[in-house]
């Protein structure tokens, strides 16, 4: 049985019981360079014009862990398990200090990536899939998860045109290819496969990210508007916010 939106995935955080909080959690997922942040900036503007309070959060942005994660990335001594756990610590900090307070206060929380990225990255690195899902059992199920799907070829062109390939996004730690291009291609291929395999399990709303920014944005807005209309029209029947 899948857990309800707005409640914990699994065991949760016993000292922070999730009640019927008025806020909504919306996650935008997708691999590196797929255009998530552009879409989020546009969504924020659109929501705020309508009078919704918006809080943005991302992956690896907590005050607590940022220096440690940066240090770890630069020193390159981290093994996969400690990496996974550092990211989970970072996420826990943001969940307790940013996401939950914002949901309590009635904000729409737009998150640029969510636990799915961590789960996909760990999966392709051979971390036990059951274990990583339990690890993130304290996360809150988003009300909506949009997955921006792209193919490897389009992605490569896009990334090269914008900022170029980066060590970690190329999975260089996995030693998949001799040069960064080969590594990026091989890594993103397995990563995209991992994301796809998670779509049903986590109820992703899959959007074709090959299309123009405006077209994707329109579709996001249509789906979010429908969701918001439904949850404000029938708050009592909304599944959101019920305790898990």
């Amino acid at each position, binding site marked *: 049985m899948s857990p309800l939106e707005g409640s914990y995935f699994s065991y949760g955080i016993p*000292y922070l019981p999730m009640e019927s909080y008025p806020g909504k959690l919306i996650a935008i997922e997708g691999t590196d360079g797929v255009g998530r942040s552009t879409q989020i900036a546009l969504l924020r503007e659109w929501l705020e014009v309508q009078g919704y309070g918006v809080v943005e959060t991302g992956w690896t942005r907590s005050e607590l862990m940022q*220096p440690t994660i940066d240090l770890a990335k630069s020193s390159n001594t*981290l*093994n996969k398990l400690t990496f996974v756990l550092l990211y989970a*610590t970072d996420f826990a900090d943001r969940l*307790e200090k940013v996401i939950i307070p914002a949901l309590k206060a009635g904000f729409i929380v737009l998150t640029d990536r969510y636990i799915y990225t961590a789960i996909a990255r760990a999966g392709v690195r051979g971390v036990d899939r059951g274990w990583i899902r339990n*690890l993130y059992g304290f996360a809150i199920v988003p009300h909506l998860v949009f997955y921006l799907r792209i193919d490897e070829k389009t992605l490569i062109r896009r990334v090269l045109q914008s900022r170029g390939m980066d060590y970690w996004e190329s999975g260089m730690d996995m030693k998949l290819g001799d040069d960064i291009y080969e590594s990026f291609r091989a890594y993103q291929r397995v990563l995209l496969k991992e994301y796809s395999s998670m779509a049903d399990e986590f109820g992703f709303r899959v959007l074709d990210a090959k299309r123009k920014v405006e077209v994707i944005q329109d579709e996001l807005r249509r789906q979010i508007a429908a969701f918001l209309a439904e949850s404000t029209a029938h708050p009592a029947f909304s599944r959101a916010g019920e305790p898990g």
Partner: protein
Amino acid sequence: MQNNLTTPHDYPGKLFVVEGIDGSGKTTQLGLLAKWLKSTGHPVFMTEWNSSALVKAATKAGKKKNALTPMTFSLLHATDFADRLLYHIVPPLKAGMIVLADRYTYTAFARDAARGVDRRWVRELYSFAVKPDLAVYFRVPIDVSVERLLARRVKLKFYEAGLDMGWSSLPVESFRMFQGKVLEEYDRLVEEFGLSVVNAVGSITDQQRVFRRLVSQHLQIEHDEELVDESA
């Protein structure tokens, strides 16, 4: 997944761990054990809870700002543990050495649960750990522990005293309340994970005698050490 923590390992080395609250004397006991093992020609490797270089920085930063929540406290310690397991515990075990761990996953189980973290979650979190060959719990009443710590004039540490929980602003009072809960959690663990209990109120030498007897069951050591009771 396979729970490594409850499945015996097949490394040639041995893993012995001590557990107990601050002031239980476990570190003293482990030090004496190491002396004995070295004197009998066993190569020994020591590892301490919360000591890996990588995570020390974050733990410190979090502590300084008093910013750690029970969940981030728990996860940071798991990160530290994973780092030490893979760099400091598994390699010596593979090399056939004896690894002595001052605190192990049971410390996390006891403290995190005392802070209100879900017990099942934290057990699954640590399911990648290696099962110790022997885990000895030095059980001490809270009064004895407090007395020892105060006599040593050590300043009670912020998280050790559970001051992050805000139950009392008085360090000693907070320590009593928090470590009292930790002791209750340890009692659950004794049965669940088969910890060997040593009464940590007795004399240091008596405790060491019991400890060495427990350890020698896992090693080929001559029992002619003067500390070891022949009648055992």
